[in-house]
């Protein structure tokens, strides 16, 4: 017997119909735990002129994966290694943004869709995409342009197939940033939600949707939990769920995180662990850990594990 998975439309219907309930002090408890972890670091951060220090999901993931790499990515930006996947992600993301903002207006087809998406990415410059990604999109032409257009249209169609049409009174919106300032703004936890439904003054629970253009990676689960933590502490009401939808080349995958206390505690624990890693970095004794990121690590050339042949 097979049971069909509920569509995203059905899940949203259920979550948005739930009553919004006070967090009963949960946000304060979580915040207190995070503040306590920053406390011992503060003097060192200020002395090193590292304030304000922003930790987003990539930096947290890097620090938890390997403290050498985590410290390095805090200190400098590295060039995008694989431009095409980033460019495809950006295009899909902006198509979703267009779809939400126009409340589900029909998307153009084929090359017209790609051209519009490219223009939207360019118009959004300064909002994140690296120069090399914009250059890649600007350089698409001929058969390559047509192939990218087909790919974008197919991914967008698959992704949005089971989404409900955005409704004004459910406060659909895009690119919503959430931050938590710790120690008076010395450390900032930061995230940007791709799509948000409900919440704010809508009178409904919040649901966060993350859009991906490749396969589901293991760290996406941690990112969902981090976003749930940000929204809970900011709004003092936990979101109902964080959903990641990935439109890969062949199909759509979805991971759903319904938010509860255990999930939020886990997310806070991960931030505390990353701050512990940062403390070791600043003390000059970061823990180097082998991972699947090692082959593309930007500090590989000075890594002890590599020198010792352990990765």
């Amino acid at each position, binding site marked *: 017997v097979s049971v069909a998975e509920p569509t995203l439309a059905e899940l949203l219907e259920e979550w948005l119909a739930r009553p919004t309930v006070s967090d009963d002090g949960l946000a304060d408890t979580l915040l207190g735990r995070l503040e306590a972890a920053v406390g011992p670091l503060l003097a060192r951060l200020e002395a*090193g*002129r*590292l*304030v*304000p*220090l*922003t930790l987003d999901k990539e930096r947290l993931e890097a620090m938890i994966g390997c403290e*050498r790499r985590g*410290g*390095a*990515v*805090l*200190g*400098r*930006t590295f060039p995008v290694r694989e431009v095409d996947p980033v460019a495809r992600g950006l295009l899909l993301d902006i198509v979703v*943004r*267009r779809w*939400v*903002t*126009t*409340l589900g207006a029909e998307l153009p087809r084929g090359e017209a869709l790609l051209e*519009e998406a490219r*223009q*939207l990415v*360019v*118009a*959004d*410059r*300064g*909002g994140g995409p690296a120069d090399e990604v914009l250059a890649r999109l600007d350089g698409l032409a001929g058969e390559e342009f047509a192939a990218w257009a087909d790919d974008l249209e197919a991914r967008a169609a698959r992704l949005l197939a089971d989404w409900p049409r955005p409704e*004004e*009174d459910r*406060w659909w*919106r*895009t*690119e*919503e*940033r*959430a*931050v*938590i*300032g710790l120690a*008076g*703004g*010395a450390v*900032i936890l*930061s995230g940007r939600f791709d799509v*948000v439904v409900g919440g*704010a*003054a*809508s009178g409904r629970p919040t649901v966060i949707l993350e859009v991906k253009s490749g396969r589901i990676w293991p760290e996406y689960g941690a990112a969902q939990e981090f976003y749930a933590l940000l929204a809970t502490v*900011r*709004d*003092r009401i936990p979101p109902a769920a964080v959903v990641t939808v990935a439109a890969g080349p062949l199909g759509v995958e979805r991971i759903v995180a319904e938010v509860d206390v255990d999930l939020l505690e886990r997310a806070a624990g991960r931030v505390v662990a990353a701050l512990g890693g940062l403390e070791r*970095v*600043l003390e*000059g004794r*970061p823990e180097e850990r082998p991972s699947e990121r090692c082959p593309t690590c930007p*500090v590989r050339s000075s890594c002890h594990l590599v020198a010792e042949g352990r990765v």
Partner: protein
Amino acid sequence: VTAGETGIGGQEHLVARLGEGLEGFPPTEVVLRAFDIGRACPRADVLTPEEPFRASPRTARKAAGVWSEIRLLSAADERLTPYEAYRRARQGAPPGCRPFPWEWLAADGRGREAASRAERLVTAAGAVTLVARLAPLLAPLDLADPERPSTTSLRVTARSPDAEVRRVTLFGRLDLLARERGRRVGVLVRTGAPGILHRRIAAYEALVVRLQGRKLDAVLLAFPDAGRVERLPVDEELLSEAEDVVVAAVRHAAVVADARRRRRELHEVDARSGPECRYCPLGDDCPEGRAWRAQLGG
């Protein structure tokens, strides 16, 4: 001495302080905006192109979002969605309120350039999100008569002890002006989380308003990303802090202008390391930046 007249927060007081702060520099024309308050590293700033302020979709989306919020506050008895607030904002200004130049987004209003269809769409997307976040923050404040203030500027002529004249233009731009229980409040909408820089920017904006002889009782800092509002009374303490901020920023600008004029080598200009080192184009060519990164093992 009453704050805001000839004492703290007054023009004479500020001019005297600017004169002292600029002693030793050749005549300089300095233009300051709130953006300049956060500048810290003279070496990096010597590299920064001296571009005039140019409107971008990023600034447009904030301006349109704030304007939609004004429309929403003006219709406080109705439960508007962010989309409806944005739509109404485009349709017209509330009575007594200076209209927002929507043609700036719609046609050839942005200098010689027209905003493209794509730019208009990303602006609308950002405005809707901003008003969704601002609405629950500002609604409990009971703000009345909201309006978008005009950009303000003030030219201060400072005569330093060596009798050379410097002109300093201070540009101010509060996002929103309103009354709260009869008191005049200016609202600043800022991204990110509250920090020391935001207090300095609020102080700067309060000083510009005061120097123009207008009354402002408090500055409200609204942080939609953080879900917080902070209220700073405009008093002698804040205005005194603002004078310090202006003097430091003008001195910083004079150092940068002087280094450019004299075509100084970058290593001859002082550097101040900080989080900006992460993005600085000088990279490892700057010893201070290298040292800053070294503490992170990079």
